């Protein structure tokens, strides 16, 4: 008997939907779930879900396969650094056990509370994308459970079509059971950070380009500055410390206990915060030593920070545009959003390196900007406007953050969508693996 539905949302707390959650203990349990039922019952249709850190509706469906019990380490080769673990293991768990031994994940997103399966499905990127690419590019191989219950090994050599569809495939090719990831030896876990203040968008882009050989780079951008100060930013550059000291990111910090009234976040509070943050005293000559946890995951120290956006949640809008049109596109996006009176506490700008062979992977050579917008009715028309700017400049939106883009916007941004759809049809995945997002995007 299936369990009762529960009300569920992902990190952006929008949308909210009723979901039947299955928590399999192993591959056999999942197989049973996918088996064609007796005539009268409806067949399983749903999506895998890890820690629910995608923002929108990519891990929501009428049924979800929760991977938290698939949480075993399966193998570790201390010579090569290849770690094999089940899909439900979190990046936090990996860092907890391996940072003290001198290893680090080759790519980490802005939160360590994501599962390995989720990191692969979203083909996540980090502050080192311009040099090291996405998470999927460090996956040596993975095991995928297909719609027919078959389990296959995938890598860039073996079943490579499914491998490149699955990395970045938002769980729509099957259920990722486990994966082998190549960990990286680092000279120290902390990061030596330099902070550069830039006066406008042109300056920050020039500085990103000038520092392209720095391992980690990311900029916080004041999205409410306008005129000649439009795009003013703080650029954070980082390299692993060489001190041989290793400390895993620690839990603790503060927690937001309940949804705060959303009106506290308005254009005045946000522009004040942004202006103060931009003007904080900085010595750009001096390097600061920052522990890995604070450098890579500053927001993880505020548990449930998504509650700050109120009961109705928020949308994160993240897009990428190619180098050549980046300045113009980002200028237009920022002026459109500030003209609409919509701002974001945290707007993050990052230079990407080249894209990869994964069919639905987000990054491409260029610049990506992520902005958080509190949910309100007037937001959606403005985002449609931003979509047009992004597409006109040859860009696209990040599926892991999306809760509202149209099928048309998706297809224009991801020209290999047809190949992806074909592969889904061939493996029968289109009948079984669906999310609210995949339905909206026309799969």
């Amino acid at each position, binding site marked *: 008997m299936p*369990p009762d539905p*529960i009300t569920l949302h992902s990190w952006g707390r929008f949308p909210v939907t009723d979901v039947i959650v299955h*928590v399999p*203990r*192993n591959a056999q349990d999942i197989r049973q779930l996918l088996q064609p039922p007796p005539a009268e019952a409806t067949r399983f249709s749903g999506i895998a879900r890890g820690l629910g850190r995608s923002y929108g509706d990519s891990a929501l469906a009428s049924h979800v396969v929760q991977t938290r*019990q698939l949480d*075993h380490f*399966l193998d570790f080769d201390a010579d090569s650094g290849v770690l094999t673990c089940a899909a439900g293991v979190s990046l936090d768990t990996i860092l907890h056990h391996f940072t003290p031994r001198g290893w680090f994940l080759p790519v980490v997103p802005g939160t360590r509370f994501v599962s390995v399966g989720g990191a692969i499905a979203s083909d996540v990127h980090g502050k080192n994308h311009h040099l090291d690419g996405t998470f999927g590019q460090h996956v040596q191989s993975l095991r995928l459970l297909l719609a027919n219950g078959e389990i296959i090994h995938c890598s860039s050599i073996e079943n490579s079509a499914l491998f490149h569809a699955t990395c970045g495939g938002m769980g729509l090719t099957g259920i990722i059971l486990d994966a082998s990831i190549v960990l990286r030896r680092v000279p120290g876990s902390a990061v030596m950070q330099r902070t550069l203040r830039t006066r406008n968008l042109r300056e920050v882009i020039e500085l990103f380009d000038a520092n392209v050989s720095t391992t980690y780079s990311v900029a916080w951008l004041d999205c409410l500055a306008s005129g000649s100060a439009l795009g003013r930013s703080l650029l954070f550059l980082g390299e692993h410390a060489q001190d041989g000291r290793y400390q895993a990111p620690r839990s603790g910090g503060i927690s937001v206990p309940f949804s705060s009234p959303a009106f506290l976040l308005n254009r005045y509070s946000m522009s004040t915060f942004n202006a103060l943050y931009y003007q904080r005293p900085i010595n750009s000559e001096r390097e600061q030593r920052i522990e890995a946890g604070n450098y890579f995951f500053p927001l993880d120290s505020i548990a449930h920070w998504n509650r700050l956006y109120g009961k109705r949640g928020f949308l994160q809008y993240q897009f990428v545009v190619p180098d050549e049109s980046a300045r113009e596109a980002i200028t237009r996006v920022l002026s459109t959003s500030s003209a609409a009176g919509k701002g974001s506490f945290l707007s993050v700008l990052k230079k990407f390196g080249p894209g990869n062979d994964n069919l639905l992977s987000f990054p491409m050579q260029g610049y990506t900007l992520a902005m958080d917008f509190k949910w309100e009715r007037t937001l959606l028309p403005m985002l449609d406007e931003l979509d047009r700017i992004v597409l006109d400049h040859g860009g696209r939106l990040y599926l892991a953050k999306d809760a509202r883009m149209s099928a048309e916007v998706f297809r224009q941004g991801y020209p290999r969508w047809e190949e992806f759809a074909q592969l889904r049809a061939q493996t029968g995945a289109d009948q079984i693996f669906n999310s609210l997002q995949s339905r909206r995007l026309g799969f």
Partner: protein
Amino acid sequence: MKNILIIGANSAIAKSVSRLYAEEHCRLYLLARNVEELALQKTDLEIRGASEVDFATFDVNNFGAHDAIIDQVLDSLGSIDLAILCHGSLPDQALCAENFAAALQEFNTNALSVISLLTSLANHMSIQRNGCIAVITSVAGDRGRQSNYIYGAAKGMVSLYLQGLRGRLYPNGIHVVDIRPGFVDTPMTKAFKKGALWASPEQVAQCIVTGIRKKKHTIYAPWFWRIIMMIVCSVPEAIFKRVKL
């Protein structure tokens, strides 16, 4: 480095407890029914830092095999510094109310098997003259409630047994811990709607490991269940019998 025996090792709480001890580089011996899950745990725990992990398949309801399995564990570990009994099942109360065979089965799993295993363990460990015995009981054992009294009675029996055993083993240097979790989100309770009082197995495991280190006698996991159960136990029976709890 401690030698630790974990019985019912495939339960969600046991799994989390084993992981915490693995990080302390302990040596673990796991007993449970499902051999595939045990093998998976062995690899996992060794990667997490356990100095060595052994396991054997074992059904707690095969009482006749208890002495032999404890001998086997002692042969392998040499001595047992800590034994944690985590096995249990959640009865179908309505079925047990009608059918004594079902109730007996639940008493065997949740109470008598524990007493049988502890008889064997206590005798071996009192020869060592040090060590700790910890048993997962339940807040349900604090007071009989109409919705769940077979489970409550079985767990309550174990709690009373542990109180006596604690006194008996005290002169031998053996510490006895009664672990009483509240609602825990595990496969055993998957049919329940979860609310604010529910804890994760990881949280409960942390309470257990900390409580054992601090030599607590009774661990409520999480701690606030001590207060909840004080209130539940203070309601006069004349009122309590009318409450559909």
